[in-house]
């Protein structure tokens, strides 16, 4: 999501006015909503939450400082630890899965095939659907009495068992199946745009040198598409941390607490458990995770440009 730089030579507007504050007044008035949202809602809201995560807030926000108590409680809470573990497994699997499937589909669609539009339409439509719809559909398909398991058993394979949503050990993979179904279309589209941006001469050169198709992809095309992969990773990463609706619709965090995720922990403590301090601390930790994902990206994206 790099931001294109425009020239600064457009700042001359309204130069006749003497007072600096009133110069370019219309533009300043027009951007007031943005300034309010950026400064008060985003920046102010974030600082407010971080500040109150060090307090003893319970039912209502309080300013009684307790230092890192909320964080200590957070990291000793089993529910939070399960949430973090789930997010880790889901995150890694979904990053790898989305990138591999997304790139493979894009590469297949790029092979000058017939019906590309039809395939692309089918692969992308889940992305238009909400996580609630996604979660509910897969809840039914993975329902042992109704969905896949039942159908396979009726076909004669009576010992077939595939019931991830009721098995605490693999419930996260049930979520993963649904998450991949919903999200890979987007990455496929981005990858396809990247593939289309690659010069055809590269392919010709590879063919002249007798390099096979798969090898060309792995050795030449993928390294060339590094920026596209980085963008995809950031998009996937930012989405994973927010994972919430899907869990609510598909498993409600169950069985037990085995499919809890951090965003759900925040919501429960803030709006269900009258435990604001925990919610603030947990959401601050979520923000930290995003920062940890973003800093290497920002370094690669912007630091690299300066060097180049």
């Amino acid at each position: 999501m790099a931001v294109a730089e425009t020239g600064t030579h457009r700042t001359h507007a309204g130069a006749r006015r003497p007072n600096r504050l009133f110069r370019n007044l219309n533009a300043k008035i027009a951007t007031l909503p943005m300034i309010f949202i950026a400064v008060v809602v985003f920046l102010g809201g974030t600082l407010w939450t971080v500040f109150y995560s060090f307090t003893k807030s319970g039912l209502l926000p309080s300013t009684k400082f307790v230092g890192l108590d909320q964080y200590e409680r957070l990291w000793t809470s089993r529910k939070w630890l399960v949430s973090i573990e789930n997010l880790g497994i889901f995150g890694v699997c979904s990053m790898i899965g989305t990138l591999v499937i997304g790139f493979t589909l894009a590469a297949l669609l790029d092979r000058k095939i017939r019906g590309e539009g039809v395939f692309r339409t089918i692969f992308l439509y889940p992305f238009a659907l909400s996580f609630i719809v996604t979660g509910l559909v897969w809840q039914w398909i993975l329902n042992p009495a109704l969905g896949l398991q039942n159908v396979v058993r009726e076909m004669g394979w009576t010992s077939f068992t595939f019931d991830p949503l009721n098995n605490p050990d693999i419930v996260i993979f049930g979520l993963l199946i649904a998450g991949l179904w919903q999200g890979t279309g987007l990455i496929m589209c981005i990858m396809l745009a990247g593939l289309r941006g690659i010069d055809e001469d590269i392919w010709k050169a590879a063919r002249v040198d007798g390099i096979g198709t798969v090898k060309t992809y792995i050795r030449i095309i993928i390294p060339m598409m590094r920026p596209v992969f980085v963008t995809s990773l950031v998009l996937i990463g930012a989405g994973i941390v927010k994972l919430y609706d899907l869990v609510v619709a598909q498993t409600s965090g169950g069985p037990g607490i085995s499919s809890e995720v951090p965003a759900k922990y925040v919501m429960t403590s803030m709006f269900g458990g009258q435990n604001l301090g925990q919610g603030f601390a947990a959401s601050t930790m979520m923000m930290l995770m995003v920062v940890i994902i973003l800093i290497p990206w920002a370094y690669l994206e912007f630091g690299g440009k300066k060097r180049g």
Partner: protein
Amino acid sequence: MVDISSTPAAMTGPRGARPKKAFSRSNIIVYGTLFVVAVYYALPLYVMIVTSLKGMPEIRMGNIFAPPMEVTFQPWVKAWQEACTGINCDGLSRGFWNSVRILIPSVLISVSIASVTGYALTMWRFKGSEVFFTILMIGAFIPYQVMLYPIVIMLREAGLYGSLGGLVLVHLAFGMPINTLLFRNYFASIPEELFKAARVDGAGFWAIFVKIIMPMSLPIFVVSVIIQVTGIWNDFLFGVIFTSPDLYPMTVQLNNIVNSVQGVKEYNVNMAATLLTGLVPLIVYFASGKLFVRGIAAGAVKG
């Protein structure tokens, strides 16, 4: 099916190797894989449509992949008019109309404000404008959860907490980054001479925007509307927090209907309700085709 090929500027046409004979081995692998994956992607939609047209006895007996023996539209009618959330049994129609009442003002206001902001940021830059824009874009990456409670307090102070108006404001705020970026990047590609010529002719801030910029930017307005319509319609988190049960948007009501624990699960009604909720974004998707792809690629592929 709509054709969604040839989307952003970069996509000029397939660039892979030259196709070989129609039934070569590699062709079979390519089409075979695509076909299998397409089945996986299409299956859930198929299951929902098929099941929503069956009666309950047939669902209990048969398998969910079989087409209905007797087509009935009763589940759809029931989902729309009588499905229950708690003690309220007036169907999903209430959620639908709530969503419509949230959607229309949210989309109109946020697209107008974002477009004017993008315009000011490209053509009327002032000292500090980039700083605010950077804060806005960083804010887009921060999880919503961090800002939720302060927003609750702000809305409560303004007397808007729990009302549709409050939710509209929240959608407005969180839709700002992506839409402003979209408009800003698009306007940056408009030739500067055009702007200068209009300035020389004495046109001001609003005149240039309405008479020159807007007419030549219709596609990007459509893209922005698409992003907002699907995003706001599919929202669950904000709907659950910032409205009250009577005003829940469709996604929240759907989840409450389907995941309620009381009573026998009527899968056909539930799936009809789910399809009804997915219908608006699906229609937007199938009708807008390449513009939808452009919208999701816009924030991503730039730079």
